[in-house]
């Protein structure tokens, strides 16, 4: 599945308020089976872009086309628990598939699969979603999105309210689902470490415009641009960048978390063997 966004512009106008341009001429090509990060300062248009790609907002000009593949484009919104309405967690997750005219047995199988995938304790499946903690509610909301078997999943700040183990479980789940189903992912977050562990491509949105379309290694070269917008590199890349700048024999431009760890381990290993210092 592919999503093509061409020259997307979104202007919000409300009575009594000045018009606000939320997106301005954004052109994007997103491929299935790939994971991209959406970075940007607060209010830069990240949520608007996700909503427009999901078809929830009609662009003022420009177009979004979805080609090939099976399954819908599904957006998991910020604070998804605000949309909960069902009496139990199972019913909440079943609501989407039930509306696809599926057999009851198939709905049940999807619900089991989705709730297992997000690692929610089984004794919580039959309680009211409103009785769950914030982190558990995030998992239910993700399960509800996954139960739709999306071809493309758009996630808006998926780590809000998740603790460390919850974030690790989310990364494992999304990686597994991507490998098994070939789903495409676009993830907006203010947590560069989370994004670094999940994605390869990086889209930087500033004032509604696409300021960079690069990789994590490429982002290291744009560190001055990031700082100008008060944004940060992922911790591991920032550490490598600082070491490289201090004259240490390391290469900062690493493309993935695994590669960044390998480079740090190699550097530390050589230091242990008595390599030279500054």
């Amino acid at each position, binding site marked *: 599945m592919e999503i093509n966004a061409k020259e997307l512009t979104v202007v*919000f106008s*409300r009575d*009594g*308020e*000045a018009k606000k341009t939320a997106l301005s001429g954004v052109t994007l090509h997103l491929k299935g089976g790939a994971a991209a990060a959406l970075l*940007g*300062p*607060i*209010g*830069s248009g*990240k*949520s608007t872009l996700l909503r427009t790609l999901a078809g929830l907002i009609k662009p003022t000009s420009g177009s979004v086309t979805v080609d090939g593949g099976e399954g819908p484009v599904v957006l998991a919104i*910020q*604070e998804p*628990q*605000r949309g909960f309405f069902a009496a139990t967690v199972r019913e909440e997750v079943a609501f989407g598939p039930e509306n696809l005219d599926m057999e009851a047995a198939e709905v049940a199988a999807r619900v089991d699969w989705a709730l297992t995938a997000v690692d929610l304790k089984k004794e919580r499946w039959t309680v009211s979603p409103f*009785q*769950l*903690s*914030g*982190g*558990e509610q995030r998992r239910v909301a993700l399960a509800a999105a996954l139960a739709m078997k999306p071809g493309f999943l758009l996630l*808006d*700040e998926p780590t*809000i*309210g*998740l*603790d*460390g*183990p*919850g*974030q690790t479980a989310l990364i494992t789940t999304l990686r597994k689902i991507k490998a098994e189903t070939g789903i495409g992912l676009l993830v907006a977050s*203010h947590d560069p*470490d989370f994004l670094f562990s999940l994605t390869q491509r990086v889209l930087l949105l500033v004032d509604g415009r696409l300021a960079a379309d690069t990789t994590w290694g490429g982002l290291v070269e744009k560190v001055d641009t990031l700082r100008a*917008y*008060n*944004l*940060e590199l992922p*911790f*591991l890349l*920032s*550490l490598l960048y*600082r*070491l490289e700048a*201090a*004259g*240490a024999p390391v290469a900062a431009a690493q493309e993935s978390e695994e590669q960044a*760890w390998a480079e*740090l*381990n190699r*550097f*530390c290993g050589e*230091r242990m063997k008595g390599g030279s*210092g*500054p």
Partner: protein
Amino acid sequence: MAPFFILDQVSYCYPGSLTTGVCQVNLVLEPGTFLGVLGANGSGKSTLARLCCGLLKPTTGQVLVDGYSTANEEELRYIYRQVGMVFQQPDNQFVAATVEREIAFGVENRTLSSEVIRQTVGLGLSYFGLETLRNADPHSLSGGEKRLLSLADVWVLKPKLILVDEPLAMLDPGAKQRITRFWQDLRDQGQSMIWFTHGLAEVLSADLVLVMENGRAVWTGPPGELLAMPEQARAWGITLPPATEAADRLGVKEPVVTNEDELVSVLWK
């Protein structure tokens, strides 16, 4: 100084639930204290926050603010003025049609002159960088902007104690710096804060941290001591600072590292 905020054997059971949300928590705070409450998802942090501000009443035990109890409806009016709560989901607390009216709402309910109200609202807008959004609908803001607005709403009321639930969620580094300065200013003015989170990095400058697990307070002490017991902290579901985790994984045992500057100087010295 005399303690102004006391949790005395506080327990809470959700109606219809057999498990205890919060179980026999004790706490004494002096004015100007920064307390971090740490714990995994479902450990009881948010329930404890709601008990602290009087939104929930303890099933047993009592919450006292300046000697007034949250269990007493008459005394709650006083407590609501002294304790401000910033929720995890900011939308829950917005009532007005514009950002400016939203900040003004709480202030207008105090007997203040219109000039003082105007000044206070202006200060709140500028302090949290919301001037350009003053006429926007609070519900139309981005997630991060809503978070800043919810902090401004409470800040302008100058409560003695501010409770914040995961305040850094959805904020970019620029906004996070604002929040750090915000805390320093509160401390300078003798106001107290309780910061509920799972990330130790957020509360490293706290005077004290309290760790929750399954509704119980299982550990209390300075944040530095928690850094020195990383295995136990992880077992409680606490996220260690990224620099501490990286140092541990790279085999740096001494000294204890809490930030990037320290780790760079340890690795390349």
